[in-house]
């Protein structure tokens, strides 16, 4: 019998080598208690959270929590069914209404996760003979959506407008074209030149899908994302988003103004063949989305945090993923996995949790300490964070 797991031997060996040095496993952290959007107890120690996607700090919002408890009492713990059978409750429609109001769009479709939203929409839109042009640094859920639909996949260099344009012009005449972009790329926290890219896509007869997972609630005047901030949201055909970041729970969605959009509910397999979200989850999501509409003050504070952390880390001598802060994500570039793991552990001992990110999730084989800020991080906490980076950086020889 051939062992089907033996293909993972190199990874098993790499992990064993890393852990044999005595370093804490960066991919097995348990949070024993969560006190707030920014503080948890890890290994018995109070830890500042700088590696969550809780950008707007909605997870402990009293109105959001109350809505979830109320829905549990009134609708029970789960739907036990698909959205197209017994799994659509009043709460699911209310959540889709909140999304339509938030984005000012005609249609909204809620999926059970953000991953499934990309998987479902991309695979359903683009079939075997259609072409998907996507940024090489796209999220795994976008690549998996391409593979599920058997479409012709054409990657282009990250954020390269000319590379996109050249490839659009080479697609065979008459073939369907979908350009897939992200507002904020989650590994380095950099923003896409959507204004130029959407214009190029439209000029070449392509439909455009933008994943705004990491910008919702924060970027743009109304928090609608990078497409709003760059003034091209009306030219985007489909926006994909998630509830597991700024919204503060779990779930995914697509919003669109396309007049035929509702048919997607019947033909999109990752929407049809899975159970819908529990009533408590859609209730917390709907409440959170409506509160995010009035989040201008929180957005301003989050920008302040992002700018201060970026500037502080730069002054300490760390190499960062972007020259300027472009989002709530600040990526610290580590020279290699061993140093990255040592620095990660030193920060954890100081009382700070960040994400250790490594290939294949990262571009160009990089090891990153990815910091994501929250609107609920106080100015004092940002000061503490910088002091911990300074101490850990010196202890590990990073700076």
């Amino acid at each position, binding site marked *: 019998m051939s062992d089907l797991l033996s293909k993972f031997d190199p990874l098993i060996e790499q992990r064993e080598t890393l852990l044999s040095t005595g370093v804490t496993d960066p991919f097995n952290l348990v949070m024993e208690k969560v006190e707030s959007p920014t503080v948890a107890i890890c290994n018995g120690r109070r830890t500042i959270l700088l590696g969550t996607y809780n950008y707007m700090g909605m997870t402990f919002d009293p109105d959001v929590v109350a809505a979830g408890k109320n829905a549990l009492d009134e609708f029970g713990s789960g739907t036990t069914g698909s959205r197209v059978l017994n799994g659509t409750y009043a709460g699911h429609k209310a959540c889709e209404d909140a999304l339509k109001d938030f984005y000012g769009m005609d249609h909204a479709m809620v999926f059970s996760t953000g991953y499934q939203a990309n998987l479902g929409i991309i695979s359903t839109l683009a079939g075997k003979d259609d072409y998907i042009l996507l940024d090489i640094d796209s999220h795994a859920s976008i690549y998996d959506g391409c593979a599920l639909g058997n479409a012709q996949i*054409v*990657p282009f*260099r990250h954020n390269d407008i000319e590379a996109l344009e*050249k*490839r659009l012009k*080479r697609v065979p005449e008459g073939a369907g074209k979908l350009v897939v972009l992200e507002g904020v790329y989650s590994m380095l926290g950099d923003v896409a030149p959507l204004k130029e890219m959407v214009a190029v896509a439209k000029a070449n007869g392509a439909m455009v899908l933008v994943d705004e997972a990491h910008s919702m609630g924060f970027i743009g005047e109304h928090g609608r994302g990078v497409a709003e901030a760059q003034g091209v949201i009306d030219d985007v055909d489909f926006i994909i988003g998630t509830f597991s970041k700024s919204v503060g729970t779990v779930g995914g969605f697509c919003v669109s103004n396309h007049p035929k959009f509702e048919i997607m509910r019947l033909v999109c397999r990752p929407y049809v063949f899975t159970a819908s979200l529990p009533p408590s989850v859609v209730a917390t999501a709907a409440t959170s989305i409506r509160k995010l509409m009035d989040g201008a003050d929180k957005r301003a504070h989050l920008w302040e945090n992002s700018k201060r952390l970026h500037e502080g880390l730069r002054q300490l001598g760390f190499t960062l993923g972007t020259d300027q802060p472009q989002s709530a994500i600040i990526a610290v570039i580590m020279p290699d996995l061993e140093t990255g793991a040592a620095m990660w552990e030193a920060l954890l001992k100081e009382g700070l949790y960040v994400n250790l990110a490594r290939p294949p999730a990262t*571009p160009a*084989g990089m090891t990153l300490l990815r910091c994501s800020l929250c609107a609920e991080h106080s100015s004092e906490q940002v000061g503490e964070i910088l002091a911990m980076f300074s101490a850990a950086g010196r202890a590990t020889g990073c700076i």
Partner: protein
Amino acid sequence: MDTTDETFDKVRELIEPFNKKGVEITPATRFQQDLEWDSLTVLDFVANIEDEFDIIITMNMQAEIETVGQLVDAVRGLSGG
């Protein structure tokens, strides 16, 4: 396969900047095993091939191409040459 034709010569020329180990390029040369290219190198190289011949080599096609000879055949088919 004919190794004296123009397409092969051009492909070999475009491989050279990425041929860090100085491997001799023949139709049987394998991109992954012999040239030891990572995914980023493949992207850069494929982009150069696409621009040179004004074609698209989709990821679906790339998955089927393991050797220089297979690439030359694919380029010839796509560019109608």
